[in-house]
């Protein structure tokens, strides 16, 4: 092989870059998060919509809620099962899920999501 030194340096950079998740993963890998339901949420058993939908798409619902409440003043949400909810992050969502650090933040931190809810809303105070 010609220019052996340079080629090998290049290949080492390539391998390290593309296997960096593996190298990193072998040294460090946190367990998946365990979001904890508050007693009140546990008791209610059902969120606004089905659990799978909430896990996957709650952000889209929140976005829709925000648009409708702020822009059109629509403050009632009728869930698929016919039940009505007041459209409010602080008074509806956070009423049940009153443990932000143990619930919301668990998955958000895990998958590197930085929601901008709390740029407008007041972050709920938690009892320690």
């Amino acid at each position, binding site marked *: 092989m010609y220019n052996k030194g340079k080629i090998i340096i290049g290949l080492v950079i390539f391998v390290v870059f593309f296997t960096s998740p593996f190298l990193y*993963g072998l040294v460090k890998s946190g367990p998946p998060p365990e979001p904890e339901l508050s007693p009140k949420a546990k008791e209610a058993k059902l969120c606004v919509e089905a659990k799978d939908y909430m896990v996957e798409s709650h952000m889209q619902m929140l976005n829709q809620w925000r648009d409708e409440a702020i822009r059109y003043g629509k403050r009632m949400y009728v869930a698929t099962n016919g039940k009505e909810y007041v459209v409010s992050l602080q008074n509806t969502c956070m009423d049940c899920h009153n443990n932000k650090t143990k619930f919301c933040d668990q998955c958000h931190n895990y998958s590197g999501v930085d929601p901008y809810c709390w740029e407008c809303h007041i972050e709920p105070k938690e009892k320690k």
Partner: protein
Amino acid sequence: MGIWVSFFAVIALVLIPSVGAQGAGQYIFGIFIPYVAVLIFVIGFIYRVVQWGKTPVPFKIPTTGGQMKSLPWIKWNPLDNPATTGGVVGRMALEVLAFRSLFRNTRVELRDGPRVSYGSNKWLWVAALAFHYAFLVVFLRHFRLFMEPVPGFVGLLESVDGFMEVGLPRLMISGVVLLLAALYLFLRRVAVPQLRYISFAADYFPLFLIIALAGSGLLMRYFIRVDITSVKELITGLVSLRPTIPEGIGVIFFVHLFLLSVLIAYFPFSKLMHAGGVFMSPTRNMANDNRQNRHINPWNYPVKVHTYAEYEDEFREKMKEVGLPVEKE
């Protein structure tokens, strides 16, 4: 011809995991195929580069995009025709980071007369830059799923990429740019007759594959949502060599992962290898210093020579006899 073969090949690649990634099939599409693909990618890439490294370059190949270094009163173009290693690094950096050779792309037209005219054509350069950098940003943003804890640069990248704060999950500009640029690069091949003539399945297939890959990613992010926490659990399981398949991940994720696996497994055997090849191209990585340093052809065998001095030594007496002049008495 090639366009339809590639199109249906990619359609098939979308359908296979849509049907197969159910139940136990998830172990094949979520664990086995990604591992095999990564191995093929890394080993294949190294193999190709080593093969190129073994190929001798018989003479210096400096592309003369500019005036070479010669007499002091002739203006030298040190970046396009470098004579030093530093200049070569500069030319290579411009090529790799700014696609300088695409910048030189021209359009040939027959005007009335008929008269051939050459015009500047920067669209390919613009689209290629947009495509490659968007792809890089999208790839780096994926590190939030590869690494736990999430590395710091991802948050920074996302806040810049999604600064318009459209919708939730936030619209990332790079994803849209990637898809649009890939679509442009495809349409360009179809719309321009000369380009269509020189395009084969090997040109269309990677484009369709990347369009499908980006499309499935955008769909998954904005429309057919999957549980991202389970997805990350799967990915971190893969990279820490403790693979698991968490329950309840939507099939669109397996389509996305399979398309990626096919892309990286196909990478070393395709035109996509220009990623490594650009560093190995003699027209980019050799300095034009022919007149300062002699380039020895690596496949030169030792040539048997008979110098004049030796010749004279051999025939000196005879030369003297017939009266020929000799250098040494």
